[in-house]
């Protein structure tokens, strides 16, 4: 009798702890389906829409978010550089290459807690494509570092890992099934503080 009660308790404990714990783990990590990965950039085109998978929806409901729709834009985030290293606030990066067609895009940086990085100097915490210095062939490089850089410079400060957020507004690729064929710029590490 005591044995069967004990076995029932074991089964129940596994069910409740394992079931709830695995949901918690899945939501704490950025686990999800329907992600689009291009180079080191990741987008969740369905995030925050009724087409999103249950994991994405559960995570969405816990973060007080109102996601951009297809007619509005698409958000790409990057945590690693072209060599696969985590982006670090102690390093300087150059973002080079083509940006996908869009009406305009913005680029900003967020820290490990997903808070926007705003520098003390009062610089705008984001760059956008309508106010960039461009090469004669229209291409543009963007520098990301804590130290002032010539050309287009996204200023950051602090230490530890960070995330780059590239938001494309009014872009045809947000509503296209061929989103995976789009090219995004590379994030190249230029050097780090000792």
């Amino acid at each position, binding site marked *: 009798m005591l044995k069967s009660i004990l076995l029932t308790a074991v089964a129940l404990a596994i069910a409740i702890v394992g079931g709830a714990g695995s949901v918690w783990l899945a939501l704490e990590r950025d686990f999800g389906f329907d992600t689009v990965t291009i180079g080191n950039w990741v987008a969740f085109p369905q995030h925050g829409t009724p087409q999103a998978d*249950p994991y994405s929806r559960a995570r969405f409901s816990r973060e007080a978010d*109102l996601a951009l729709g297809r*007619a*509005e834009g698409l958000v790409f985030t990057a945590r690693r550089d072209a060599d696969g290293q985590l982006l670090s606030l102690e390093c300087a990066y150059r973002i080079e290459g083509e940006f996908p067609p869009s009406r305009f895009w913005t680029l*900003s940086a967020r820290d490990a807690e997903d808070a926007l990085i705003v520098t003390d100097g009062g610089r*705008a915490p984001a760059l956008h494509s309508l106010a960039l210095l461009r090469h004669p062939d229209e291409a543009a490089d963007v520098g990301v570092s804590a130290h002032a850089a010539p050309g287009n410079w996204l200023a950051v400060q602090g230490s530890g890992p960070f995330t780059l957020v590239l938001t494309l507004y009014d872009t045809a690729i947000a509503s296209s099934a061929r989103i995976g064929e789009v090219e995004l710029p590379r994030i190249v590490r230029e050097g780090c503080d000792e």
Partner: protein
Amino acid sequence: MSRLLHALVVGLVGAGIVHIVVLLLVPVYSERDAWSALSQQANFYRTVRLDPPGAPPLIGSLDPLIDAVACRFDLRDGVVRVHGEGQVPYWSISVHDRAGLNVYSFNDRSSPRGLFDFVVATPAQMIGLRNALPPELDDSIFIEADTAEGIVVVRAFVPDESWEPTITAWLRGVACTLH
């Protein structure tokens, strides 16, 4: 031994069921969603700045170069009209359901003459509106939303700080009214 194994298997199957149930219930019981954040700020049909100046934004993921306002509505009270005057470099409007999921979005390029004048209605209300269109809604763009309660979000692009007063004034002019 076999009974212990039996208990373990039953436990694992139960864990799978609990996993699915908990996963589907999280959105239903969440009190950290956008709706809860907005309902602490203002009542239905009142626009709220999502990025109040000098305070942390209500929506953590908001782009720093975008200013936005939102209002909550309940279509069971009647259709809701969202309109504003003036020109800004870029605006977009989106309709979200009670859970905050984006069910409809629209930007200024898709609007005839760049007019900002929208009416959100359920499919049933749309039929009524088509049969007898009030003259003041002649120029409006109709958005069909199959939801009772929901949120309208209006975003505008701020190219640089000198635009801030213009964009703020434009967003303040956005009216969210029960019609």
